[in-house]
């Protein structure tokens, strides 16, 4: 009984203390920071962690960042949170892996760290022990000391560019530090650090193409401000639909940002130096002419009625897609396919991902859903369908993908350098060589 009383007193005491130290408006601001930084993207809606973040080195488990003292960050000081965000160091773990985008978060300012701290300490504590990440040798946590020396510029978000004017300055902070857009949109080098010279120039992540966000025509240079704003707030505009993780980023984070922040983000993106990537073929000036006769003809006999195996893209399109996208691809319930950039991209990743997995976006009370077809088509059929819509509605001549490319895209793997790929073998090899050398030296000494 006495113990219980003490516990209650302690609990009340802590609550009172935290209520004292952080007023409601600071917590509210911290919540906005957490939204802009999309903490929930990895740590989950309740921030209790546990999700396996797929990395090319193996799964990295998102930690519990609720104020639970045992399993979360309840025992952390503000300075410790600041270190985690800025230096990639956390109590109990030592060095974090950069799946936690601290190379971007390092640019978060003191006031925002304080607010974020107040907010994270105010959310309901969840007792949830998260599985420890084990990437195996040589990707051990202390290896990050060297990596950080090479790639972490404390206080400066990785690759951020100079910005002219107050609005673009704020935009830079939102894009580079909080939004950590470069984590997906910047290609990475041999040791998986973002390549500064190709900052925001587009990359491949988990089987998707994260497009070029720079001011080149192959990037956002050809988008109007209005198109950009609509995409970031609603998840779609006439030329693009946010699929996969970008869809989630819009629904969880970007769609909740204020109008002035949105203006600032666009102002900064306009100033990002162009990275020239493969030009996108122009959208067709007039819709494709599709003659239904090419896919219509009597189907008789049970064998033909039961045959799901066609690899004729036109038949697949007219059967599975035309009810929403129209016979000529100009769209009825779905968008006009010819205008979609992902359809005409040199890389069919996003097109293939959407055909296979669909779109499922809930933004601002609106639900946009396209069903995926991977349960009803094999990879060869998805490839045939992708080729058909690219060549017919995108009017991109003679373009892939083939079955093999679809299989590779749908394996959801992020491409990595040979060094990372063979790192375990190389590291063990080096150790073996060292041991042999040592043995040889010792043997020679004895002899």
């Amino acid at each position: 009984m006495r113990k219980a009383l003490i516990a209650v007193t302690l609990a009340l005491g802590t609550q009172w203390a935290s209520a004292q130290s952080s007023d409601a408006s600071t917590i509210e601001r911290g919540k906005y920071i957490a939204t802009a930084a999309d903490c929930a993207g990895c740590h989950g809606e309740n921030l209790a962690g546990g999700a396996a973040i797929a990395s090319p080195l193996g799964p990295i488990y998102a930690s519990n960042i609720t104020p639970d003292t045992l399993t979360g960050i309840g025992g952390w000081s503000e300075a410790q949170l600041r270190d985690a965000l800025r230096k990639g160091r956390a109590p109990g773990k030592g060095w974090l892996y950069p799946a936690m985008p601290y190379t971007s978060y390092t640019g978060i300012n003191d006031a925002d760290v304080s607010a974020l701290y107040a907010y994270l300490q105010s959310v309901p504590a969840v007792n949830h022990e998260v599985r420890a990440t084990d990437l195996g040798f040589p990707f051990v946590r202390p290896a990050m000391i060297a990596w950080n020396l090479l790639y972490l510029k404390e206080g400066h978000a990785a690759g951020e560019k100079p910005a002219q004017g107050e609005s673009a300055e704020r935009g830079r902070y939102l894009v580079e530090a909080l939004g950590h857009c470069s984590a997906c949109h910047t290609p990475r080098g041999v040791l998986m650090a973002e390549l500064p010279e190709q900052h925001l120039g587009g990359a491949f992540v988990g089987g998707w193409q994260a497009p070029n966000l720079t001011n080149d025509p192959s990037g956002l240079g050809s988008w109007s401000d209005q198109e950009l704003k609509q995409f970031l707030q609603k998840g779609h505009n006439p030329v693009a639909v946010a699929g996969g993780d970008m869809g989630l980023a819009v629904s969880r984070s970007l769609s909740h940002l204020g109008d002035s922040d949105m203006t600032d983000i666009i102002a900064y993106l306009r100033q990002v130096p162009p990275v020239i990537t493969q030009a996108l073929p122009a959208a067709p000036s007039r819709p494709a002419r599709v003659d239904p006769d090419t896919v219509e003809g009597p189907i008789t006999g049970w064998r033909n009625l039961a045959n799901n195996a066609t690899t004729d893209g036109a038949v697949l399109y007219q059967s599975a897609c035309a009810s929403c996208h129209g016979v000529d691809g100009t769209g009825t319930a779905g968008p006009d396919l010819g205008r979609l950039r992902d359809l005409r991209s040199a890389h069919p990743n996003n097109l293939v991902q959407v055909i296979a997995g669909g779109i499922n976006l809930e933004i601002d009370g609106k639900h946009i859903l396209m069903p995926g077809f991977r349960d009803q088509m094999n990879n060869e059929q998805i490839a045939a369908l992708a080729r058909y819509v690219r060549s017919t509605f995108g009017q991109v001549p003679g373009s892939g993908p083939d079955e093999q490319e679809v299989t590779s895209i749908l394996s959801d793997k992020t491409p990595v350098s040979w060094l990372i790929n063979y790192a375990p073998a190389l590291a063990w090899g080096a150790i073996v060589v060292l041991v042999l050398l040592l043995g040889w030296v010792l043997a020679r000494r004895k002899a």
Partner: protein
Amino acid sequence: MSDYDADVIVVGSGSLGSMVALELARAGKKVIVLEAGPETTDWKVTDNFRNSARQNNFNALFPDVPYAPNSFSPGYINPHLEGIDVFPGTLRSVGGTSRHWTAATWRLLPEDMSLKSSFGLAVDWPITYAEIEPFYCDAEYEIGVNGIADYDESGQGLGYTYPPRSRPFPLPAEAKPYAIQRLQQQIATKGYRIDVAPSSRISKPYDGRPACIGNNMCNWNCPIGAKHSGYHVVEKIRKLGVDLRSNAIVHKIETGADGKVTALHYLTPNRAATRLTAKVYVLAGHGFETPKLMLMNNLGARSGMVGRNLMVHPTIDMTLLSSEPLWAGRGQNIHGAIMQRRNQPDRTRIPSTRYDLLNNPPTVGIAETALSERKIGAALDDEIHDRSARIFTFEALTEDLPDKANGISLNPGFKDSLGLPGLRLDYRISDYTNANLPRLMDDFANFLQATNGTRISAPTKWICQQHIMGTVRMGTQAEDAVVDRDLRCFDHQNLFLVTTGVMPTAGGVNPTLTGMALAIRAGKHIAKEV
């Protein structure tokens, strides 16, 4: 575990078989589902539809395989019918006949399940509405059902939710197209009211399915997957690791001395035979195939009720040509229904009746008629344009009562490609059904007057719904029923029949949602036993 091939084997992958498999798979059980028919993907059915010359036949879009004939396969059913013209179109296909259902998801009323005590008719169910109610909710949330709050489904204008529900509809009602709005205005003058028809053609994205965009081919096959079908549940159970085998035709069921099922055998189309064992067996092969399997193996014989008491919802319809364009064929196939005749006090004499307003695309029928009148060229076009805008069909679905004389039995005169028998079908329209005719004619006449229409097809002959009930009825004792309230066979302790064939009485509404609720309930029971 290693003694058995699975915890549970389910025969049939339709709406109900897949649902019981889903329940078991979620409980972590090892499940094998055997489906006699082939797998035809949804997009392929759309392809078949677009390229079919027989669009007025739902079954025609699915392969009529020689090793698993369906009810429309020539010769498979040998009909002995009196006063009624057609018989139900059943499929044998992965996903079952729900591949071409309308997705009408009515609940039964408490009175529908207690005809004996409420109206002195037929029998009471061995289970009450209150006992099924939570499972109705489970089914509605599983498949996504549209409806309105405070809804009296009995049509008696009660002003409160009836039958009672413990959870609201998961989705809001769909919008009413012009035809339904206009008809509502017109028939209101005669005292009729069009109520919302609950359906699983979803009004908002739900569970990975997009919202309906009004392709208006619900019955054939929803081309975007907005309408629920057993095929969606099949996709779910596969992800849960259920071993679904298509083209696996179960024909032989072994039992031990205690009556328990010990194994079942299936053939593939090329006659390769496989024997499988499980702790529990579920037959979920529709209201025809389930009793057929029982009869082929002399199971459940004690009751003498296997295959009997067939109920099919005798139906009669009238097509009219309105004086003004109604534009039927926009939105879903059935939007609203006139429910006032569903549960009137005179149900002791006159069957429960519902009027459906068929919002189907009418062009094929119009073209057929016009062509038969030798109209071609511009005259044909004009006829189609004019009539498509004005034509409308009212359909009366009526409750029939169980009668031992109605039912299915084996028809050894037919052999499929594996040498398995066909079915003999007996059904006679009863005096109780015919007692409805005067009032039906009265109502139809009122609809005609209210719309200022011309009758182009008179309500003169009984047809039936594709609803099969009663053939393996549930009850309280082995003497007059095949299964108990948990769908367990009285004679075979580890054999469950999950089909609308268990319904002892038919009610006046589509039975599938009730079947799903019973399937979920049975699944939970079985999960506890294995």
